[in-house]
Each structure stands twice: as C-alpha cells, then as structure tokens.
C-alpha cells in the first residue's frame, strides 16, 4: 500500500508540482497554439503513448546495457533519441495503415508529438533520477496528464485573450508567455523551492 501511495505521489509530482510546461518549460510554439480541444487531446494522447513506449524501451536499455557500463547521460540520450525515432516511425506506419482517415487529419499533430522536448525531457529526467520501471510508468502518465491540463488551460487562456483588448504589441506569443509566466509563478508557490534541472 505504501508503495502504491509513493507511486501515486510520483504521478502527482509529475503532473502538478513539476509540471512539464509550467515548471520545466518543456513546450514548443506549436503546442501553445493548437486549434481545438480535439487537437489538444490527440496531441496529449500521442505524447503520453510515445513517452510510455519509448520510456519502457529506454528503461530496458538502461538496466541491461547502459547503467552496468557506466555510460554517461549524453551518450545515453543519443540512444534515447534513436529509440524515440524508431517508436515514432512505427506509430506513423501503424496509424497510416490501420486508421488512414484519422492519420490524414492528424498527421501534423503526430509529427509534432514525435520529436518533442516534452517526451525526451521526461525520459531524461527519469534516467537522471534512476527511477525503476513502475516509478517511470507513473511519472510518464503523470507528465501526460500534466501536459493535457496545461494545454487545456492555455486553450481557455487563448479564448479569453482573444475576447480581451490586448495592446497590439502583446498580441499572440508575448501575452501567452506572460500568462504562462504568471501560472508558473503559482506553481512555484506550490513547490516552494527551485527544482533541479
């Protein structure tokens, strides 16, 4: 029971306390301007799936090959990118063959979600912290939930900002970065201390 609570706390930490977007800035411009809720949910689902599948394979590589040989994190990250690339390519091929119609609509989102800082960043964080398999799984799912919530919040913010009288020089990216900064301040208040890189 205590073990399960610890895993839940890891997931909560990944989702809220060390949120990928607000606390670690693992975000790209395209993520900030996704068009609608369907795109946000598709993107988040793909990100979470990519992170879980790649993360499990990276864990296997870490345990069997990399940790025993004391390979540095920079060389490990090169292998992680190779694994991510392979998983992403397999996902694209599977999606284009099985659900061709959906793939045609979601192609851009799929491509954006593949080589993404949030995916690689999450895998690297778990590798740095030397989490075991279950801890990593809960961390990956927690990150996915955190990214989804953050993107939904930002979508709501975009809609409110569109209806407000924002000075021209702040329209678009500047006002959204300011908004993220203020939310990030709120998350920093939740943690109460700086998080390590």
């Amino acid at each position, binding site marked *: 029971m205590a073990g399960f609570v610890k895993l839940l706390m890891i997931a909560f930490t990944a989702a809220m306390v060390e949120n990928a977007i*607000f*606390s*670690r*800035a*693992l*975000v*790209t*411009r*395209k993520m*900030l301007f996704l068009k609608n809720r369907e795109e946000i949910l598709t993107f988040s689902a793909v990100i979470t799936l990519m992170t879980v599948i790649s993360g499990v394979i990276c864990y296997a590589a870490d345990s069997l090959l990399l940790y025993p040989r004391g390979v*540095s*994190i*920079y*060389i490990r*990250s*090169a292998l*992680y*990118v*190779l694994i*991510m*690339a392979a998983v*992403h*390519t397999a996902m*694209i091929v599977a999606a284009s063959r099985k659900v061709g119609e959906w793939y045609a609509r979601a192609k851009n989102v799929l*491509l954006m979600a*593949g*080589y*993404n*800082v949030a*995916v*690689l*960043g999450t895998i*690297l*964080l778990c590798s*740095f912290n030397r989490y075991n398999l279950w801890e990593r799984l809960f961390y990956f799912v927690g990150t996915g939930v955190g990214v989804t919530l953050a993107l939904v919040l930002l979508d709501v913010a975009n809609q409110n900002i569109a209806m407000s009288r924002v*000075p*021209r*020089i*702040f329209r678009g*990216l*500047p*006002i*959204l*970065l*300011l908004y*993220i*900064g*203020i939310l*990030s*301040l709120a998350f*920093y208040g939740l943690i109460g201390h*700086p998080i*390590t*890189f």
Partner: protein
Amino acid sequence: MQSSRLKRYRHLVGRFDGLLTRTPVITYGLAIPFAVMGTVDARAAFALSVGMMAISLLSTAVGWVLKRMGQGREVYMLVTAVLSSLTLAGLSRLPLGGFQMPVGMLGIYFPLLAVNTLTFFLVTRCDEQKSLPANLAQAARSVLSFAFFVMAVSLFRELLGKGSIFGVKVLSSLQISTVLMPFFGFILVGMLSAFCRQVNRSIRAWCLIKDREEAMDAKTEEVKA
C-alpha cells in the same frame, strides 16, 4: 506607392533578416525551453549557443542533401534528431574543463538540444534550389541571433540573481533568487518580444511620418511655384 524612408528601412531590415529581425526566439517563438531555463548562467548560455551552432549547421547541411535526394519531412527530421544527439554526445566529451562544467550545469537541457524546434525549423526552411553555403549562412545568422539573445538574457539574470558574470562575483549585495526561476524567464522573453515589436513599429511610424512631411513640403512648394 511605398515611401522612400520606409523602403530603405525595409531594405535594411531585410539585410539583417534572421539576425536582428525575424529572430528565432522573439519573432517565431522557437527554442523556448532553452531561452527560459538555459539563461540562468552566462556560461550555460554559452554552452547552449555552441551546441546549437554545431547541430544546426550540421543538420542544415544534411537536410539540404536529403532534400536534393527527394526525401520527405519524416526522413530528414529523423536524421536531424539522431545526428544532433550524436554531435551533442561528442561535444559533451570535449576535453575542455571550461566547457564541460557549463554543460553539466544545464542538466537535461543540453541533450534536449537534439530535438529543439530551431534546428527543425532551419532544416525545414532549407532551400534545396539554393547553394549549400547560402543555406548555411542563413542558418548561421539565425543561430547567432539565438546566441546573442540567450547571452544577453543570461548576463542580466545571472547579474541580478547571483551577483556574478560568467561565474565571477561582481555584486555581493545583490542576489534576487526569484530572477533565476522559470516564471521570470517566461515573463522576460514575453516582455522582450513585445518590446522588439514596439521598437519596430515606432521606427516604421517615424519613417512614415517623415516621408509624409517631406511629401507635403514638396507639394506646398509645387503649388507656390
């Protein structure tokens, strides 16, 4: 018909395209994680800039070759990510103590350069009809702009946050630790983006006003004559 001062300004702006204007971080919002989290120390920003330059130039060259071979976006993004990560792994092993230490300070953000949006943007924008040196020059301009931006922001944040510049203590009394937090990075980048837009608008408005005044003066003289 475009006014002459405004035309000259636009021509000047076009010459510095990617370097001072249409910059990757401020205009396009690329490489946000590195602009926000990698600018807490000037040494870390320098390591980021060196890494970004190395992988961007290499990826642009490889992307140009792949595009000329008719390869699609999926292929050159895959090759770009893999080559970049291998290059960064090599850079991290450089036997330079002054370089390895800031790379260590960056934590996950140095290996994360392998999947940064600026490099992907440069590879996607690479024109296979133009020569390789022209594409490399354009990529170098954009990365220099990124480097200039992160160095300027990091000097400011390090000075206010730690009272030092490049690790050398300069101000012992001033240490505002909140300047080093992610939220400050977001707010700073957002404000700088708005500030640069305002500067551009002000200059264009000034050019337009001056040109109209000159046109009015010329017309008045014509009427008098």
